[in-house]
């Protein structure tokens, strides 16, 4: 999947790293998974207040500001470590990303674009929801229309999450993957409802 401009050029190695420049290194390789970083069991259920508290605790210790008077190596490492903690937190607090990550730990690629649900009825319903979204701005009360749409999608989203949890718990990963695909549709739709609402309010 190449989505970039292509430049034909002769082969020559490009390397401008050096002192004083901003450079990026590979992230710290930790043997721990995201759940281990937060000292919580690998499971769908995550207690948000626990996660938040431990996140703050970890950043209190590893944020680059804590290393401001340290040497170059430790500063650079702190940036990488804090980035990793942020990524772990971001993944675990989002239901969709957490579900994808749980499957990834089982060597199943559930990232975007990689699969699509084959549930025809579900896809039909998605098309209808999208039509409703595109018509919402023309409704007599667009905000009420969006609110109605949102509460429908939200309840579908939480049902999909419960489905995922049940399927994941009994190692039924094919169905779990399918539920993640549906969750992606819902999450995207919720995001677009928010965006549209923001645009309407700004007008």
């Amino acid at each position, binding site marked *: 999947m190449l989505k970039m401009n292509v430049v034909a050029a002769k082969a020559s190695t*490009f390397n401008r790293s050096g002192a004083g420049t901003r450079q990026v290194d590979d*992230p710290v390789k930790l043997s721990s998974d995201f759940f281990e970083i937060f000292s919580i069991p690998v499971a769908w259920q995550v207690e948000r207040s626990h996660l938040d508290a*431990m996140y703050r605790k970890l950043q209190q210790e590893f944020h680059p500001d804590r290393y401001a008077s340290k040497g170059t190596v430790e500063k650079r490492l702190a940036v990488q470590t804090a980035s990793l903690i942020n990524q772990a937190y971001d993944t675990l607090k989002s239901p969709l990303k957490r579900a994808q990550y749980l499957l990834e730990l089982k060597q199943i690629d559930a990232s975007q674009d990689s699969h699509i649900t084959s549930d025809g009825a579900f896809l039909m319903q998605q098309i209808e929801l999208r039509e409703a979204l595109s018509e919402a701005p023309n409704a007599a009360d667009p905000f009420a229309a969006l609110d109605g749409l949102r509460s429908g999608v939200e309840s579908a989203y939480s049902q999909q999450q419960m489905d995922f949890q049940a399927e994941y718990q009994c190692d039924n990963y094919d169905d779990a993957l399918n539920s993640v695909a549906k969750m992606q549709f819902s999450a995207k739709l919720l995001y677009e409802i928010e965006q549209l609402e923001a645009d309407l309010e700004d007008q």
Partner: protein
Amino acid sequence: MALLQISEPGHSPQPHQRKHAVGIDLGTTNSLVATVRSGMAEVLTDEQGRELLPSVAHYTADGVSCVGYEAAEHNVSDPLNTLASVKRLMGRGLADVKTFGDQLPYEFAADDGGMPKIKTVAGLVSPIQVSAEILRKLAGRAEISFGSMLDGAVITVPAYFDDAQRQATKDAATLAGIKVLRLLNEPTAAAIAYGLDQVEAETDTAPQERIIAIYDLGGGTFDISILRLSKGVFEVLATGGDSALGGDDFDHAIANWLRVQVGMDEDLNPIEQRILLETAKSAKEELTDSEQVELEILDWKGTLTRTLMHSLIDGLIDKTLRACKRSLRDAGLENLDISNVILVGGSTRTPRVGEKVAELFGKQPLCSLDPDKVVAMGAALQAEVLVGNKSGDDMLLLDVIPLSLGIETMGGLIEKIIHRNTTIPVAKAQEFTTFKDGQTAMAIHILQGERELASDCRSLSRFELRGIPPMVAGAAKIRVAYQVDADGLLSVSARELTSNVEARIEVRPSYGIGEEEITSMLQDSFSHARDDMQARALREQQVEADRMIEDLLAAIYKDGDALLSDDERRCLKVAIQELREVRESTIEHRVLARQIESVAKASEEFAARRMDASIKSALAGHSLDEIEKG
């Protein structure tokens, strides 16, 4: 308890050597410098006891003649060589400048599509140079007050500043010879200055967490930030604003009304423009206390009432309120969830602003600290922690990236890689493959902004990954890694995984200035003779080398047995010994820097193992209850 920290966090190894750190508010209209004395933040004054420094530099044929109040006196008599409000130009391109350039009376010269330079009698002057002059003046004020050199500074930027604008600010500090401890977002600095974390610690009845809105209307920028404060951790939830809207626009709106009243046409000369602006500004200030003001320009006389002024500026204030609503939505909050509203920036002195903000959030904003000083004071408090004078155990700032980062894809579209309001530091990686058989290079164009089209976003950098071995289409695997540090600055690296061809690049924004240009500017500058610079650079590298040796020895002593093989330990010892020898013998700072970099490389793996081990131990042995109680 972190394994990496040899001394206790926040305590410097030599407790008697107090370091000199300042917070600098580099403002559009005025700038300030503050420091912490006996635990209190205070703004440093000049010889005349003045706290503000107008962000103005005056140029003559010989270069900078004066900075600050003295420079501002040339506003009317010599407008083209009196450079003010350059913060609006920092990190911007000529196209941006054109959109508000009519409000600045300067003549611009664009060189190679970069940041526009201003034509003066002293030649072309970059906004970065003007900012450096202001910073240098403030640093000088601090050094006189301390009676010694400055060890570091926290410099504030609007939260809304993009990568190019942040980099330009950092470049200005480099040019002024100031060590930047951190670029801090202005609203976050304001929240620190109000000591809301202290209130939280002292009262048991205080809520578990509170949400703070910081409404910052400066001369040229507007920022709104929504912060969550919980157990000493300030977490930025959302930030928004407009980097080209400020109190100056109130003045321009009033000046424009005046122009119509007086009957001048739109084509004003710089002096007429100044007169209208000065009159507008003083009228606005007078209307803070009185209901109406009598005005006189040339042979025109008239009255401006407060109500009329409101009608001129309400549209601008409403624009800021819309940004507030958007940020609340980004944070997933309602306006009534806000526990405190803080007003920052001189333009919030206009009472109409406070009224409308109170209306939106349903509560009276906090404004007990001088809105002009609050940012510098907060920056000073943070500088004190970062320089190592004060333990920062109880305070931490978690900032977010204000605008999404992405790359250009086919058809001129943008694919977002890091979304706005993501907590920083943050790292992301992506994999790409080749599109044609035998393709040996790939161009990557990095942008920042929220719009769909690449052409509508800020271009940060273009680079090419070359030397990909020819393969069939789709066989190469190119991994592009993005890292945004705690200052909000981006760096990018790309690597072809099957051949390990690497491109490490420094993202110098297209609108920035090059490393070489900075060096030549430094050499040209009067206050930094070449020898001084060399000596200073060598001294900095020596300090770095000493610290590295000390840190590494302590780390080996502590964790060497557990984490290093005998061979690895020997290699590190040899590297340390070599560094020690070079440090003693060389007078070339570059030679020492290279040696430091090589020891850094040699010890990277060890440092990573220690970080890994300490992450694992950070939460071990603490019960959940204990952690939640903090």
